[in-house]
């Protein structure tokens, strides 16, 4: 079945450093979404990517969708302590548009 792998599992950075998390799917995706979950909280939607090669920016966050629509990345420039949390990617395939598969997440900690 479809699997979504995410690396790294953990990332600890100094405030001001950059951070990147990568997401890879075993099958071609129709779209990919990114979520952020603060410790003890619930996932919060960040963005959705649909087109091959798509790049979207939200302030210091840059999201990319691979040309083959099987991988994606989230890059944060100049991390801040407010960026702390776990970042999840979640993808859907054309075969079942209702079944979204989540990666295991990358847990980001930021040292002030």
């Amino acid at each position, binding site marked *: *079945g479809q699997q979504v792998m995410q690396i790294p599992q953990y990332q600890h950075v100094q405030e001001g450093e950059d951070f990147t998390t990568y997401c890879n799917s075993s099958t071609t995706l129709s*779209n990919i979404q990114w979520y952020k979950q603060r410790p003890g909280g619930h996932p919060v939607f960040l963005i959705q990517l649909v087109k091959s090669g798509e790049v979207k920016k939200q302030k210091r966050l840059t999201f990319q969708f691979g040309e083959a629509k099987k991988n994606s990345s989230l890059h944060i420039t100049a991390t801040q302590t407010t960026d702390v949390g776990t970042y*999840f990617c979640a993808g859907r395939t054309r075969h079942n548009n209702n079944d979204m598969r*989540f990666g295991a*997440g990358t847990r980001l900690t930021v040292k002030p």
Partner: protein
Amino acid sequence: NAGVTQTPKFRILKIGQSMTLQCTQDMNHNYMYWYRQDPGMGLKLIYYSVGAGITDKGEVPNGYNVSRSTTEDFPLRLELAAPSQTSVYFCASAARLVASSTDTQYFGPGTRLTVL
């Protein structure tokens, strides 16, 4: 506008007991979902519903049942609770067009369930 609400926040069950996790949304969303999140892991889809009266299985449906009698409510039923069902359960809702895969899922605060 409360969004997605879930009750209870916490629950401890004994093996073999049953319970219902409640989920309500006030955004008139057609799609609703139930996920479980095990420690250090991502979310796994248990069941989903595309509208009142329609439900379907997700990735990990065994041991659970759902119903969707109204647009607002999507309860999750656990029969014969097992330790493997110890997890955090999240309900989510989304407004989705039938012909489109575009949606933003809004999550509830979660129910932390322990089965001993």
